[in-house]
C-alpha cells in the first residue's frame, strides 16, 4: 500500500517537474541581469519620485538608457547614482539635489482668520469648497495633505505657525507633496550649496493692496527685488515675484529690499553688521 502511494506521488512529482521545466523554457522571458543588479543598489522606496513606476521601473530605464544624464534617483541621491554608473559603466549625470520648499509664510499673525472652517480637515476638500479661512485665497490651508502624502516623514505642520515645514535631511524631493497640495504652494527647488537658498515665500497673485490686506507677509508685486537683482534671476508675473534658482547667485540683495519680508533666505550665516 505504502509503496503504491510512494510510486504514484513520486510519478506525479517527476511528471509535473518535467512539465514545469518545459513550460518555463518555452515561455522564458529574458531579463537583463543588470536590471536586478541595479535594483539591488536602489533604495527600494518605490516612491515614484524619479518619474518611473517604482524602483524596478527606474532600474530598467537606467539599463536601457544611452546615458544617465536625465535619470536621477532623488531618494538615493548622488551616491546611489554613482553606484549605478559603476554597475552599468555609464557616466552618471550630475543632477543637482533638490528639496521641497513651502512657498507660504502666512502664519497666524500675518494672516488673520476671517472665517472658520468646520468641515473635513483635508486640503483637497476644503479648497474645493472655498478660498480658505483667511483673506488670502492662494495661501496654505494647513490641513496637512502634504504631510499625509510624504512617505519619508519629511514634512510636518509647525503648530505655532500652522504651516508645513520641510525637514531637509529627510526630504528626498520625490515630489509627492507637490502633487498633493491643491494650492500648488510646494515647489522642488535646488538645494543649493550648503543648503543655502533664497525663494519668494508667497504665491498670492492678487494686486498689492489686496494681498497686503489679506496677509502681512505677502508678495505685493512691487518689483523692487526684480530691479535689485544683478543677475536677472527674478521675474514678475501677475503681481507675484519668482526667483529662478538656475540664475540666482545667492547674493541676498533681494531679501533686504523686500518691504514685506516675503523673500526668505535659508541656512545662511548671520549677516555682518554694516554701518
Amino acid at each position, binding site marked *: 500500500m505504502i509503496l503504491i502511494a510512494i510510486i504514484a506521488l513520486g510519478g506525479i512529482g517527476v511528471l509535473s517537474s518535467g512539465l514545469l521545466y518545459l513550460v518555463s523554457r518555452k515561455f522564458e522571458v529574458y531579463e537583463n541581469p543588470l536590471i536586478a543588479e541595479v535594483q539591488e543598489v536602489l533604495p527600494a522606496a518605490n516612491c515614484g519620485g524619479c518619474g518611473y513606476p517604482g524602483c524596478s521601473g527606474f532600474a530598467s530605464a537606467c539599463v536601457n538608457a544611452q546615458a544617465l544624464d536625465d535619470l536621477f534617483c532623488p531618494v538615493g541621491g548622488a551616491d546611489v547614482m554613482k553606484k549605478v554608473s559603476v554597475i552599468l559603466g555609464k557616466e552618471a549625470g550630475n543632477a543637482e539635489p533638490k528639496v521641497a520648499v513651502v512657498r507660504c509664510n502666512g502664519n497666524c499673525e500675518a494672516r488673520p482668520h*476671517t*472665517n472658520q472652517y*468646520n*468641515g*473635513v480637515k*483635508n486640503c*483637497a*476638500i476644503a479648497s*474645493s*469648497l*472655498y*478660498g480658505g479661512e483667511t483673506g488670502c*485665497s492662494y495661501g496654505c490651508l494647513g490641513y496637512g495633505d502634504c504631510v499625509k502624502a510624504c512617505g519619508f516623514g519629511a514634512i510636518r505642520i509647525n503648530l505655532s505657525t500652522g504651516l508645513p515645514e520641510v525637514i531637509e535631511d529627510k526630504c528626498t524631493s520625490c515630489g509627492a507633496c507637490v502633487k498633493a497640495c491643491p494650492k500648488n504652494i510646494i515647489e522642488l527647488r535646488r538645494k543649493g550649496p550648503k543648503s543655502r537658498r533664497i525663494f519668494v515665500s508667497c504665491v498670492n497673485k492678487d494686486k498689492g493692496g489686496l494681498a497686503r490686506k489679506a496677509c502681512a507677509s505677502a508678495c505685493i508685486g512691487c518689483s523692487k527685488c526684480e530691479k535689485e537683482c544683478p543677475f536677472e534671476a527674478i521675474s514678475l508675473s501677475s503681481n507675484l515675484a519668482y526667483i529662478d534658482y538656475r540664475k540666482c547667485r545667492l547674493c541676498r540683495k533681494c531679501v533686504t529690499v523686500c518691504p514685506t519680508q516675503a523673500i526668505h533666505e535659508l541656512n545662511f550665516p548671520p549677516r555682518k553688521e554694516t554701518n
Partner: protein
Amino acid sequence: MLRTFRIGGTHPPENKLSAGKKVRVIEAPGQVVIPLRQHIGAPAQAVVKKGDRVKAGTLLARPAGLVSAGIHSSVSGKVNKIDEIVDMSGYKQPAVYIDTEGDEWEEAIDRSETLKKECTLSSSEIVRRISEAGIVGLGGATFPTQVKLMPPPGSRAELLIINGVECEPYLTSDHALMIEKGEQILTGVSILMKAIDVHKAVIGIESNKPDAIVYFRDMVRNFPGIDIMPLKVQYPQGGEKQLIDAVIRRQIKSGALPISVGAVVQNVGTAYAVYEAVQKNKPLIERIVTVTGKGLPEPSNFLVRIGTPIRRLIEAAGGIPGDTGKIIGGGPMMGKALVSADIPVTKGCSGVLLLPKQEALRKPACNCIRCAKCVSVCPMGLNPALLMNATEFANWEVAEKNYVVDCIECGSCNFICPANRPLLDYIRSGKGKVMELIRNRKS
C-alpha cells in the same frame, strides 16, 4: 396615494418658517455688485467699462460661448469699477460694481402689472428672447435655459415637467411665487411648451403646499395641456432625475440627459422669468429670495435686485441674531456656508438661511458602523460609504466603477449618517477628481 420617486429619499424637518408670507420688495441698494459668472459655464464678458451709465436692464456682459448667459444691470446708475468679489462659490469672481442713481429702466421693458397671455412668436424667436434675457435655471443649478430648450439632434421632447416641488427645507421662494404669480407662471409654461413643441406639461408640487395646489388646479382650466400633480413630500424630489421618476415613472441612464426619456424639466421660477422675458421684454434682474432662520425675528420672502448684498436682506428680516453660527446661501441640505454677509444675491440664490451655533457646528465623526442608512436614502442608488472610502484612499477606479459621477450632491447621506461621517464632502471631491480623470482620458 401620492406619487414620489422610487429610489431612496429622506424627509428632513421642513421648517418652512416663511411659508405664506407675502413677498416684500426690497428697494435697490446704494451699490450693487453683479458677478459675471452667475451660471454654469463660461463667465460672461463685460461690455461696459468704468464710468458708463447704465439703466436697469442694460446688458453688462454678453455670454461667452454656447453654455453661458448674459448679465444685465439690475439698477440704473454709473459703473463704479469692474473688479473681483468673493461670491457664493467661495472664490473670487469678476464683478461689475454699479452705484445706483435713480431708478430708470430700459424703454423696451414693459413694467405694467397687466397679464399678457397671448404669445404668437415662433419657437426660435422665443428661445432667442430667453437667451437674450440671460435666463438660467432658477431652481439652483443655474444652467442656461436656452441650452435646455434646444434638444440635441435626433431627440425629441414629449413632455414638459415644471418643478414646483421646493423640497429643500426652510425655503419658500418658489411657493411664494406660485401663490402670487400663478397666472404668469402658467403663461410662461405655455410659452415653454411652444418653444420645445410639446402639447403636454405637468407641474409637480409637493403636498406641503396645499394652497398652491388648489390655486393652480383652479387656474389650469384656462391653460390647455397643463396638468397639476401633487407629490408626496420627499427630499430630494426637486432633483431633475427624481422629479422625472416621480411624474412619469422613468429612470434615466447613468450619464444620459432627461431628453433621453423625452422630458424637459424647468423650475417654476424659470417659467416666471420666461414669461417676463418673452412677454414683457424684461431680462433676469431680480428674483425672490427667502431669508429665514429660527433665530431671525421675521423670516420673509423678498423680491430683490440681483447684486444686492445679502446683509441688506437680513437687516430687512430683523437683523443677524446674536447666536448665529453660519449664514448659508441656499437651504440647509444643499446650500453652502458663506464667508461674509456682503456677498451679493445672484440668479441662483433662492434663499439665505441663518443657522444658530449649536445647529451649525458639525458633530465629531465616528467610525462607520455599516448600517447602510446612506445606501437606503441615496436617491441615485449609489453606495455613499463605499464611495467615501474610495475617495479617502484615492482609489479612483473603484469610485468610477461605482458611479461617483452620478452623485447629485443632495446631502441625504450626510443628513442620515448616525456616525456623522462627512460622506458628501469626500464624495464631492472624489467626483471632481474622477471627472477630471475622465476629461484627461478623452483629450
